[in-house]
């Protein structure tokens, strides 16, 4: 099978971490219970590692589990130490982990990135056929750089960050763009799956859940739902690794990628920032410098 050599080496690397006592948990994938789906799995010893799989169905972003795993208990026991967690990481998982380290959500010395040679994952088309997932076809970083352990193998070639689909969307007149945006967002049932699946959404109390003050209504009126998505996405600007965890989690099949990519494209164009790929010390919107581009300040009245 296509990936069995990498899978073997991956299992061996994971087991070795337990054998050497350098990890408490290894986060990876195991076989799913529904067709064409592998799923996240936490191994806690060598025997558990036998369950790991590495195939074209390993789509979830595993970094999403890290903030909660590293959260200090409310009443830590005597001598509490953060867990040591290893993650079997695709390029996107790895980029997310590097982002979380930058944002102090994960202690660098407590996480081990096992970089996998990702050949891209598959998703089902509307007719039920397997095809390369969009995020993978457009992926600029199939193997995360700077990992602690690298499982050798042939990864897919990185795509160019040309954001063709975003540019095509931007070329449309405003009214049409808004119509498309509204059409997609009106499918939203405010289940919050997009937020929970995203590694970057780790706020203890999300702005959308705050009641005093209430920034938006929990009811699913279109205006509030648009506000939710807009603000959530803008919170991702310069941090989003375009992994499509939100897209995959959304039960309603909303094309969130079109909009998250727009922000990622802008972050690259305006700040030269591609999280986990470019070497910014902090996400671009965390700092301000005098010579930041001001091209974003536009007059909507101007044609």
């Amino acid at each position, binding site marked *: 099978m296509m990936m069995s050599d990498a899978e073997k080496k991956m299992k061996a690397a994971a087991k070795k971490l337990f054998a050497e006592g350098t990890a408490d948990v290894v986060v990876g994938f195991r076989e799913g219970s529904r067709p064409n*789906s592998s799923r996240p799995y936490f191994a806690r010893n060598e025997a558990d590692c036998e369950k790991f799989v590495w195939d074209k169905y390993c789509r979830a972003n595993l970094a999403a589990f890290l903030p909660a795993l590293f959260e200090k208990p409310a009443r830590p026991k005597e001598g509490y130490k953060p867990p040591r967690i290893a993650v079997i990481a695709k390029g996107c998982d790895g980029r997310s982990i590097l982002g979380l380290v930058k944002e102090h959500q994960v202690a660098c010395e407590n996480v081990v990135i096992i970089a996998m040679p990702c050949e891209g994952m598959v998703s089902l088309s509307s007719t039920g056929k397997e095809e390369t997932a969009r995020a993978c076809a457009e992926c600029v970083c199939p193997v995360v750089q700077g990992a602690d352990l690298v499982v050798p193998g042939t990864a897919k070639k990185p795509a160019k960050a040309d954001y063709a689909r975003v540019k095509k969307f931007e070329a449309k007149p405003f009214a049409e763009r808004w119509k498309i945006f509204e059409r997609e967002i009106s499918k939203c*049932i405010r289940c*919050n*799956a997009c937020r929970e699946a995203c590694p970057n959404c780790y706020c203890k109390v999300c702005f959308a859940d705050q009641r005093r003050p209430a920034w938006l209504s*929990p*009811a*699913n009126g279109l205006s509030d739902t648009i506000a939710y998505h807009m603000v959530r996405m803008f919170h991702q600007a310069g941090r989003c690794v375009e992994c499509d965890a939100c897209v*995959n989690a959304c039960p309603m099949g909303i094309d969130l990628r079109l909009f998250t990519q727009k922000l990622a494209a802008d972050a690259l164009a305006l700040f030269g920032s591609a999280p986990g790929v470019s070497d910014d010390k902090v996400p671009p919107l965390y700092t301000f410098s005098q010579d930041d581009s001001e091209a974003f300040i536009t007059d909507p009245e101007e044609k």
Partner: protein
Amino acid sequence: MSFSVLDSKNLNKFIAAIAKQARVRGPVADASGVILSDITPRSSVILTYANFKLPFKREFFPQCEVISRYDGAAVKEESSDNNVVVYFGIRPCDAQSIAMLDKVFVDDKYADPYFQKRRNNALIISLACNEPAATCFCESTGGGPASKSGSDVIAYSLKQSLLFEPVSKKGEDFIKKNAKLFRAPAQKELQEREKLVSVTSSKTHAVKIDGSRAALAKKTDSSFWDNIAETCLGCGACTFLCPTCHCFDLFDEKLGDGSARLRLHDACMFASFVKEASGHNPRNKKGERMRQRVMHKFSYAPENFNAVFCVGCGRCISACPSNIDIRETLAGVIA
């Protein structure tokens, strides 16, 4: 029970005739797949779909509804329209879910007027399944691809015709009232129906539910539940798509000089579902919330309503981003 037949080629005529009496809603083609929507002359009715993404409960218990308004002087009940709706082509699992929700919202010391009104105004014609999906396990939860529970009429999709069978008095009256749209069944059609029912009932995934309530009572070790919930993201997708989940929140929203009181779907899987103003959270851990969900469906509902609150539709299995599978959870409980 007698059967009435509609030739498949006359389906649109049938719908047009019913549409004169009531609003008709059913499975129509949409860019995203097959959805439950108004059937208009321009709609494309699809009878070969697996199931809607969204659960049928939303027709009687909407995601968000205004239940009362305050105009600065008094709180007044919000009235909804009184339209009769004929639902055509609902899957038996979805129809059964309404029979269960009746126990919560209608057959109760406090009848819910909002649910009850929509319920009374609805006629449900369900459509037996010819091809259950890989994640379907309706037979195991007391239903089945041809279950009649919750339906007023059940229809069977044969090669060239649709067989209608009345289930409730309301359904009987409907068939009688529209007798001229139907004809009597041919013997081979009756045989075709029997074969269909027996073949599809063998296709659903078998899940052991018997004994789950007793087994759950004994499953008190939190490590079991912590383990199941380990990869749970607390996203709520399972709850929002589940036909029998009915947790909600009531919420005041200022509107001009007054306010509206809204009812919104909520999820026990959300971390702050039972968090109190003092900050205390009785279900602080994901494992506790996972346990609550499973107990509610497979232990508390059976105790209070004599019904397992799961129709085996498999939506939660398909929707879960971490592929947490209720079938595996139950197997682990009973093991």
